[in-house]
């Protein structure tokens, strides 16, 4: 990766696309200047002359009159034979399942005219009924990715399926050596059974499971399964380098459980206490009550100190962690026996053995760990994969299949994998595009997208779910399972195979039971299908010593991007800000402020990172508050250089080399050397201010104070008048609106918001929000209607001045605040619009009429919340924004919501409270001659929130959830942001409560 000093005007220049070459010497940019995006050079040459102006004027007049002569003929093409269930203009919903690298979501897929356009949580699911992960929301775009393979490849050349089948079958018949099937974790019972049956035809077959961000150590310590953690039953939660709300094991189910103990019932206040020890400032650490930064080399010592203290009653010493704090952790754990839980993200089986012993000692098993229902979402066996790599290099592997696995790119020993592959006779990849591994394969037999496939899932014992095709295959791809069936000379297809496999779990009439399971998407009657056994190959036991080094590096998984780079080509996810660093489009070296000051490094300075294997990469530095001192962190999944991933090309660098093999286990840490280069490379962050400058924007208080007097936890602004201090609303200059019908409003519980970004992603998909790219994000022109503001805070700042506040503390507390249009009743934007393009509705919604907007941007300037977004460019049908796939190619456009306008250049846009859903909900009610039911009309953000932090509803309906919350919380935790401005928002926030030790 060359990330040296290189400035570019746009992605085109960076990539040097043919389009860019063509336009490079065109006079057009001079003629029609595009201000700003390119920097100084062209801005000066891009002057408009009077004659040019007149020419333009004349041209546009002529164009308008020409265009008006004849309206374009538009076709209306009905179905030839309309499917019974498809009504044009009416959405159909199908239950399905998203699973990727541990992230499991039972989902509902919204289809319009038989094309999927939105993913929502499946309320029938027992595991993920509330919300989805941002990855699940974004996975939709993968279906419409034009870079997917459209046909199978033989030696890199387009081929026919018959030829592929014949060649593979004949080569398999003469295979010489072991046949290996490498996949990421498979939680599909039928697929697993099928792979085993496929393998039984060979004398020597092995199914190796390789997870990029693996939990091998945890699995080895727990007999091949992940303990059935239940955070909802825990009063004390201790997390050690386990980002269980963001990336670890099963984040969406965990977030649901976790938040049950964090939501405060005002009538019976109770709250769990969460300690987090970690190297990076993770999403989970950001939500912890007490967070302690530790170096990777201190992890094992910390766990054994905890173990000794909990089991032996000894003191928790011998660690770098503050002894007083550790003692209080131990005290809390011992006081809450059976109601406490310790989780650790370490991949060292020895450490995990200790964690298991701690959990046994504190009575977690059978209480906060459901021993009857373990999780299956991670099954990767690092030791087996390492052995396979050696076997490949030794030449004893005859054939290898790669399914959802790309070790040439993302294995720590990628070079060994690549060299080993040269000695394998038959290499088949099921990748959906030519990725790093598929490049070296003899055959690429592209798999369907999951929305095109039948499959079943068992993420947790007894929790079965199904995915069903919601669109017929777009390309001539074939589901991996069907390929295996074809190669085993079986005539049945996978759907039938799966159905017959399910006969054992459906009692009663099978067809009825099956239909119901497909309809519901889940079957949770306690029966289990998936066969999981303890790993045959294991790493040696015992704790591995992580050698302390001057700079310890960790490689970590980003919440939205995933571990293995599967989503690299997804522009939605690339532009979704990291929950904590708020960085988009690429990875970086996250380092603590102290280290940066010592090295003289400033943000955006490019550093040369040299790994233990002497390879090096160059990445810009990002000063990350909360990063353990003496450590740096780099995210996985970047540094792609693939033609099949144009969106990801050139973003960041590959940091898998940080992961090292230590005594048969892969540890995601090692020592690195850092060198300053003279280059800088800007990191596109959506939020660069870390403080609210003392204004009342976010509010938080302690649980102790809340229990004492809930009326004191929130600070309310009072305006001084001659009659004494009064509420801002009482001295209004404005007349109030009278709402007769509905009054839509939203309550956001800061205590429940974990900051994952699912709402932002969901909003992007629902509302056709364009992707603007790194260059524009750097110009602060991202278009997200909804953002999650992240603020750092620390006690020591309170008495100091603003300059000091700009420096976050070394271990700050973090607070997340979803920020969207507040739909003010006295909206400052409405009064300044010269063309009345934004105004108030009779239902309390601040409306935005795009076609009336002339783009003065007065409204954005007058908005105190900075939630209005301006279309600086045409992001649709514009080659310069080719990475904005949902709007720039015919296939990508399939994902657009047909009920929402794609905005043009030069207009303002902002959150509409999902007015299309409000209108539809009202229409449905009117058609059924009734009032809308509460919960029927929800915004996309509220629907996708995995923790129910966002509640949307009609404040006019006294029985609605929102009315009840507001009535109960008024004067306690309910507050408006910047209430002193008296803009009277329709969005109310609830104060965050921390359960400090």
């Amino acid at each position: 990766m060359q990330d040296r000093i290189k400035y570019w005007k746009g992605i085109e220049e960076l990539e040097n696309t043919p389009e860019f070459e063509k336009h490079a010497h065109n006079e057009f940019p001079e003629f029609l200047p595009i201000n700003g995006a390119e920097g100084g050079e062209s801005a000066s040459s891009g002057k408009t002359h009077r004659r040019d102006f007149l020419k333009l004027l004349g041209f546009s007049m002529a164009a308008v009159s020409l265009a008006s002569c004849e309206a374009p003929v538009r076709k209306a093409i009905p179905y030839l034979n309309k499917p019974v269930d498809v009504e044009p203009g009416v959405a159909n919903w199908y239950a399905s399942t998203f699973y990727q690298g541990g992230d499991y979501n039972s989902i509902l897929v919204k289809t319009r005219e038989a094309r999927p356009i939105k993913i929502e949580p499946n309320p029938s699911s027992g595991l993920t009924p509330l919300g989805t992960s941002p990855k699940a929301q974004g996975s939709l775009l993968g279906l419409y990715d034009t870079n997917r393979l459209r046909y199978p490849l033989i030696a890199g050349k387009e081929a026919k399926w018959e030829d592929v089948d014949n060649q593979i079958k004949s080569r398999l018949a003469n295979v010489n050596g072991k046949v290996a099937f490498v996949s990421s974790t498979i939680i599909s019972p039928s697929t697993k059974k099928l792979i085993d049956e496929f393998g039984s035809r060979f004398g020597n077959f092995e199914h190796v499971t390789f997870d990029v961000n693996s939990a091998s150590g945890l699995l080895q310590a727990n007999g091949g399964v992940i303990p059935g953690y239940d955070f909802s039953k825990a009063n004390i939660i201790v997390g050690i380098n386990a980002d269980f709300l963001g990336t670890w094991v099963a984040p969406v189910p965990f977030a649901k459980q976790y938040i049950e103990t964090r939501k405060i019932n005002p009538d019976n206040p109770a709250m769990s206490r969460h300690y987090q020890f970690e190297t990076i400032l993770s999403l989970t650490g950001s939500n912890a009550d007490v967070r302690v930064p530790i170096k990777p080399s201190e992890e094992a010592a910390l766990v054994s100190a905890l173990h000794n203290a909990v089991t032996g009653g000894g003191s928790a010493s011998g660690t770098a962690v503050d002894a007083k704090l550790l003692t209080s952790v131990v005290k809390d754990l011992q006081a809450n026996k059976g109601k406490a839980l310790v989780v650790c993200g370490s991949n060292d089986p020895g450490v995990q053995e200790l964690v298991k012993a701690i959990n046994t000692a504190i009575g977690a098993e059978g209480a906060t760990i459901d021993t009857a229902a373990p999780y299956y979402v991670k099954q990767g066996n690092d030791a087996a994969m390492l052995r396979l790599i050696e076997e490949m290099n030794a030449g004893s592997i005859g054939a290898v299949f790669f399914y959802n696995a790309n070790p040439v790119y993302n294995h720590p020993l990628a070079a060994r994998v690549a060299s080993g592959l040269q000695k394998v006779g038959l290499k088949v990849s099921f990748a959906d595009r030519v990725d790093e591994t598929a490049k070296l394969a003899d055959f690429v037999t592209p798999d369907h997208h999951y929305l095109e496939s039948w499959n079943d899932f068992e993420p947790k014992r007894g929790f079965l779910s199904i995915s069903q095709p919601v669109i017929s295959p777009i390309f001539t791809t074939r589901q991996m399972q069907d390929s295996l069936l074809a190669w085993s000379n079986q005539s049945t297809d996978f759907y039938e195979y799966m159905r017959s496999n399910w006969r054992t779990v459906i009692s009663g009439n099978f067809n009825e039971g099956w239909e119901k399971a497909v309809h519901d998407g889940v079957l949770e009657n306690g029966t289990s299908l998936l066969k999981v056994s303890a790993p045959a190959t294991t790493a040696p036991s015992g704790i591995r010593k992580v050698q302390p080094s001057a700079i310890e590096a960790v490689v970590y998984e980003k919440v939205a991007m995933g571990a293995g780079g599967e989503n690299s080509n997804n522009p939605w996810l690339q532009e979704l800000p990291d929950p904590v660093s708020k960085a988009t489009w690429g990875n970086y070296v996250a380092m603590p402020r102290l280290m940066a000051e010592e090295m003289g490094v400033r943000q955006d300075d490019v550093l040369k990172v040299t790994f233990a294997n002497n390879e090096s990469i160059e990445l810009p530095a990002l000063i990350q508050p909360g990063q353990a001192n003496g450590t740096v962190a780099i995210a996985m999944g970047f540094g792609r250089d693939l033609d099949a991933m144009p969106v990801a090309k050139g973003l960041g660098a590959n940091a898998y080399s940080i992961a090292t093999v230590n005594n048969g286990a892969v540890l995601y840490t090692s020592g690195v050397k850092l060198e300053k280069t003279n280059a800088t490379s800007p990191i596109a962050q959506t939020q660069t201010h870390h403080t609210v400058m003392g204004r009342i924007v976010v509010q938080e208080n302690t649980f102790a104070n809340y229990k004492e007097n809930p009326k004191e936890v929130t600070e309310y602004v009072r305006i001084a008048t001659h009659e004494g201090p009064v509420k801002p609303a009482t001295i209004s200059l404005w007349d109030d609106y009278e709402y007769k019908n509905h009054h839509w409003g939203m309550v956001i519980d800061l205590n429940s918001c974990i900051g994952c970004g699912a709402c932002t992603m969901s909003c992007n998909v629902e509302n056709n929000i364009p992707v603007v790219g790194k260059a524009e994000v750097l110009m602060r022109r991202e278009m997200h209607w909804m953002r999650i503001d992240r603020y750092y805070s620390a006690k020591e700042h309170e008495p100091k001045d603003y300059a000091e506040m700009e420096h976050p503390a070394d271990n700050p507390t973090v607070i997340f605040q979803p920020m969207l249009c507040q739909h003010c009743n006295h909206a400052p934007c409405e009064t300044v619009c010269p063309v009345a393009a934004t105004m108030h509705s009779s239902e309390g919604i601040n409306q935005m009429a795009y076609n009336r907007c002339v783009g003065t941007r007065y409204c954005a300037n007058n908005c105190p919340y900075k939630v209005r977004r301006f279309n600086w460019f045409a992001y649709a049908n514009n080659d310069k924004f080719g990475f904005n796939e949902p709007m720039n190619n015919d296939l990508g456009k399939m994902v657009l919501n047909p009920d929402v306008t794609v905005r043009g250049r030069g207009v303002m846009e902002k959150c509409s409270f999902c007015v299309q859903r409000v209108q539809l909900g009202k229409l449905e009610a009117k058609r059924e001659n009734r009032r809308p039911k509460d919960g029927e009309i929800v915004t996309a953000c509220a629907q996708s929130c995995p923790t129910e932090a966002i509640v949307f509803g009609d404040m006019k309906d006294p029985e609605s959830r929102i009315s009840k919350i507001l009535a109960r919380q008024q004067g306690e935790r309910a507050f408006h942001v910047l209430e002193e401005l008296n803009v009277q928002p329709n969005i109310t926030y609830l104060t965050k409560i921390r359960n400090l030790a």
Partner: protein
Amino acid sequence: MISCILKTQSKILYTFLLALVVSFGAFAQASEQAEVAQKGVDPGATEGAEVTTGDPAVISAGEALFKNNCAVCHSAGSDVIVGPGLQGVTKKRSESWLISWTKNSQALIQSGDADAVAIYNEFNKQAMPSFAFSDDEIKSIFAYIDSGKGAVSAPVAGPEGAVAGENVGTDAVGAIGGYLDIVLVVLIIVLIVLVVTLLLITSLLKNYLNKNRQLNEYDAEVVNQRFDFSKVYKSNAVRTLVVLIFVVVLLDLTIEKTMGIGIQQGYAPKQPIAFSHKLHAGEHQIDCNYCHTTVYESKSASIPSANICMNCHSQVKTESAEIQKIYRAIERNEPIQWVRIHNLPDLAYFNHSQHTQVGGVECQTCHGPIQEMDVVYQYSPLTMGWCIDCHRETPLNTEGNGYYDKLVELHESSSKGAFTVSSNGGSECSKCHY
């Protein structure tokens, strides 16, 4: 609807009044038709209702179902259309037989039922499609047939009946307009004759005076006065006036033409198949909903797919060249590419079901006399002003709709005007633009 007539054909007041009188009776019939159509959307509407023969509610529910589903092939009288006329069928067959026949006639035939096989053979082995009605719904249909309403009204509701009648007003205006033109032309001819006669008289008199009388100088000057036109067109006032008029006319034209850009009122493109709404909706009175299946459910009314055409045209007029085009499309597996007539801009959201089912608006209100169109044209301008005008003037269809209950009371307590779409927020931006 009447206001539309006023706008489009703003002629003289009395013609309009005449039209009003003529159309009034028909209008009442038309709205009845609309009501039926509206009820027809919901086959489940009658579910659970006690079916007692003679109950008017059941009969009207049955009527709606019959007209939407059966009338295409059966008359309620004794005429044979595709299938037999159904008058008196309940006396010939048992109720249970009728129900199982309606639900799945093929099953009954295959079970070897003698009556069923006989009918099947009698009507050229033409299968009746299956209908997923509830028993009560089927009973209501036969209750309607028994009531004899359909049998009596069928001949009356001929082509010039219910649906077509709605447009008599428009026709009247057109007819009277033609008559007026003739009167005007005659008047103009009379006037021209008058002017010519007068000029002739003047000239005669002048000649007479000049020849036969010795006029004094003063009188001669009066008689032989010459009008100097150059003075008129050389005067500044006249010139200014002319220029002014020219500019005003030009501006007016420009503005009118500019405002008309993108408005395709009257747009009547040639369609790939010469489908006639006049024949189907007018003469055969097929309910709009029969082909435009989603008009009460969805934002789009939906253009019928070929399989809907095939419901009838697998049997009817199979030799027609136009129908052959449908067969070809099916054989080639290529959908028929109709030319879209009503093109709303992408920035405007329009929902048919909101207007048809909830609002109770007739199709003709916006689409014009569709039942008389051989070739469909865009009847309304489809401009925002046109939408808003209607939203401002039209009272909401709130009767019996639980959604509006409190709102109507609230409105009546605070305002004397009608509870229009606009007074419920129907002219706000984000009702249509999002």
